[in-house]
């Protein structure tokens, strides 16, 4: 019988996990540890409404204060897990070992930094509320020339917000086409076009050699020999899962905490969200998914797993899904694309600003991309969930006209 469950990480996956423990009837002690001092908050608005200044931070609470009180959780904000002893069933929080019967690891990820830029003011990454407010303040200054390093989803959203605020934006992407590894060249090119049509100076296939400035960043030297002057730099070149604190724990770590198909990392220990890598039955390999929706679903699944016996446990096999808001476009992707995929645009067109594209290979239907097409993305997501073939997906698309 479990009496005490500890959740490390007080963001989306951790909080949804705590809610699930209670709604599933767990009435023992729950401790929720969060490194940041803020009440649990939602991150997507940090690169959208909050960054734009449309929302203040008090609008992004993940749970109202009375809701947190209802959950009867010992909320430890501003504290950090520093170690885990699997055998003793203890987790070290701010240096003090605390016993648990069940542990949910949801420590998320941190932004990759551009090497050698730590000493310069004006160079930012975007992950936390504090990061967001710092960038927001920086974009209010003058002169305002923003350099975004990396044309991924975070960088693209930042560029979109900055353009709306009248900031001059240059975006540098090392790949020849933005997001080419995830979306392929054709769709990646539509993303590039979207930025350029909004006035972003997008430069692809070039890397940043170094950022220069005395105390503050002044410019970036690029590897094609050009120089981009900038007052603010936002670096969006991916994240690294937060597993440092688990190095000597004996848990299997490999770009995340490795879990079985049920999200179990070790007896009585589960993981969820950006930090978790698990054996996904649909793909026959392990995956780590950094999407908002996955943090919700996996937080629920991994918490429930702690209350289940091995016999009761079920595999976690979602169709990954995410969205990104850029300019007046809603981008949504469901499924996982494969390098061999054929890409078929089935409805609409980039010119209309509204289209759906399907990805498939080897007779399998793998993923759907939608631009301002939420209904169709969900319809195709259901087909992926049902393991529809490529032909079945195309036939369905023909029915849609």
């Amino acid at each position, binding site marked *: 019988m479990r009496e005490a469950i500890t959740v490390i990480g007080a963001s989306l996956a951790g909080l949804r996990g705590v809610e699930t423990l209670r709604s599933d009837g767990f009435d023992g002690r729950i401790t929720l540890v969060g490194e940041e001092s803020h009440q649990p908050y939602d991150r997507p608005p940090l690169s959208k409404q909050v960054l734009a200044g449309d929302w203040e931070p008090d609008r992004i609470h993940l749970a109202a204060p009375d809701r947190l009180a209802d959950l009867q959780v010992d909320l430890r904000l501003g504290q950090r897990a520093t170690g885990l002893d699997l055998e003793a069933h203890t987790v070290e929080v701010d240096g003090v070992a605390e016993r648990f019967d069940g542990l949910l690891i949801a420590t998320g990820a941190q932004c990759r930094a551009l090497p050698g830029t730590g000493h310069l003011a004006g160079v930012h990454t975007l992950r936390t509320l504090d990061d967001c407010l710092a960038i927001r303040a920086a974009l209010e200054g003058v002169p305002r020339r923003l350099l975004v390093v990396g044309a991924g989803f975070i960088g693209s959203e930042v560029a979109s917000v900055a353009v709306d605020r009248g900031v001059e934006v240059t975006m540098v992407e090392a790949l020849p086409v933005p997001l080419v590894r995830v979306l392929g060249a054709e769709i990646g090119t539509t993303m590039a076009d979207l930025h350029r049509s909004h006035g972003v100076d997008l430069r692809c296939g070039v890397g940043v050699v170094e950022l220069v400035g005395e105390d503050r960043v002044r410019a970036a030297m690029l590897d094609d020999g050009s120089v981009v002057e900038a007052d603010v730099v936002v670096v969006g070149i991916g994240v690294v899962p937060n597993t440092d604190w688990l190095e000597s724990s004996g848990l299997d770590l490999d770009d995340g905490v490795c879990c079985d198909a049920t999200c179990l990392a070790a007896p009585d220990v589960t993981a969820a969200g950006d930090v978790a890598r698990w054996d996904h039955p649909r793909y026959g390999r392990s995956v780590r998914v950094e999407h908002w*929706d996955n943090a*919700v679903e996996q937080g*629920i699944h991994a918490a429930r797993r702690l209350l289940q016996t091995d016999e009761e446990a079920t595999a976690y096999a979602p169709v990954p899904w995410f969205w990104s808001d850029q300019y007046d476009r809603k981008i*949504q992707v469901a499924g996982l694309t494969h390098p061999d995929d054929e890409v078929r645009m089935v409805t609409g067109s980039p010119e209309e600003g509204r289209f759906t594209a399907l990805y498939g290979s080897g007779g399998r239907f793998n993923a759907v991309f939608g631009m301002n097409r*939420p*209904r169709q993305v*969900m319809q195709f*997501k259901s087909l992926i969930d049902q393991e529809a073939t490529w032909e079945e997906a195309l036939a369905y698309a023909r029915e849609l006209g």
Partner: protein
Amino acid sequence: MRVVVDFDLCESNAICMQVAPEIFEVRDDDFLYVLNEQPGEDRRSAVEEAVQRCPKQAISIQD
């Protein structure tokens, strides 16, 4: 149970439609339509999942 959508927040991500298609429908005009504002108790867990998974936290339940 009464299903309430804050349409100022809703951005038609359509996750709710996937979770509970008999209650939520995003149509081709990309707007969300609530097909049944007072579903029976047998639909509670589906509506609760829609509440949790709405990326805009735009759905709530009033009892």
